C-alpha cells in the first residue's frame, strides 16, 4: 500500500522506462496532452478498433487464458502481457496508417 504513494506521477518516467528518453518526445507528449488531442486520438483509435473487431479478438484471447489458467488465478498483468504482442501485431494496416497520418498532421502543426 505504501509503495503506491511513492509512484512517480509524471509521464516522463514512463518514457524513461520504455525507450531512450528524448526531450523532444516529452515535449510532444505534453503538447498533445495539454491540447486534449491525445485524448481525442485515443478515443478515435478505440472506436476504430471496436469497429474492425480487434477488441472482440482480444477479449476472446483473454477468455481463453482465463479458461486455461483457471478463473481465480488470472491477473491483469498476465492478460496485459499476453495481449500486448498480439494486439500490436493485429491492428489492421488501414487503421494504423490512418492514425499515423492524423498524428503526423497534429504533431506537425505544434511547434517543437
Amino acid at each position, binding site marked *: 500500500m505504501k509503495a503506491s504513494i511513492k509512484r512517480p506521477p509524471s509521464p516522463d518516467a514512463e518514457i524513461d522506462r520504455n525507450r531512450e528518453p528524448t526531450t523532444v518526445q516529452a515535449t510532444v507528449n505534453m503538447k498533445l496532452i495539454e491540447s486534449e488531442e491525445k485524448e481525442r486520438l485515443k478515443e478515435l483509435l478505440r472506436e476504430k478498433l471496436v469497429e474492425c473487431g480487434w477488441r472482440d479478438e482480444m477479449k476472446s484471447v483473454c477468455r481463453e487464458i482465463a479458461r486455461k489458467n483457471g478463473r481465480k488465478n488470472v491477473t491483469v498483468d498476465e492478460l496485459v502481457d499476453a495481449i500486448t504482442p498480439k494486439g500490436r501485431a493485429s491492428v489492421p494496416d488501414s487503421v494504423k496508417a490512418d492514425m499515423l497520418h492524423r498524428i*503526423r498532421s497534429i504533431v506537425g502543426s505544434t511547434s517543437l
Partner: protein
Amino acid sequence: MSLPKVDDIHTNSELISEVFNQLLDSIIVDVASECHRITKLGLDRNLDEEEEELRLFAEARARSSDPSHSGESNSKYVVDMFGQTHPPIASEIFNCMNCGRSIMAGRFAPHLEKCMGKGRKARQKSTRAAQNQNSKGSTVSNRLSNGGSANAGHEYSNGTYEEA
C-alpha cells in the same frame, strides 16, 4: 540539447510511431482490465455456456451426418432435445376434411392439390362452382384455372409442394 536536422526527421517518424504505440498500449490495458473484471465477477459465465452449446450442437450435426446416407440434408436425422429422431417424411395418418379419405401427413399437400383443384377431375366437379362464386379474379381462382398446365409447381419427394 538540440538535435541536428537529419536526426530530427528520423526522430519525427519515431515520435509519431511512439505516440501511436502509447495510445495502443493504453487501450490494450483498458481491454485487459475490463476482461479481468468480467472474469472475476463471473459475468462471462453465460457467454461460455452459449459457446459450449453452439459447439456441441455443431459437433452433433457433424457426427450424425457421417454414418447416415449423404443424400438427405442433415437436419432431418439430428436428435432433438428430448432424444427423439424424426423421419424425413411425416408418417401420421388422418382423414382429409375435404374428401374423407385417410391420408398420410407427409403426403397431405399433394393430396390436397388433387383433391381441391389442381387435378382435372376435381376441377370439373366442384371448383367450377367455387370459380363462379369468386368472380373477382382472386389468386384462388387463378390457381384453380391452372389445372390444365403441367408446370403449375414442383413437387419434391419429401412431400412439400412449392409453387413455381
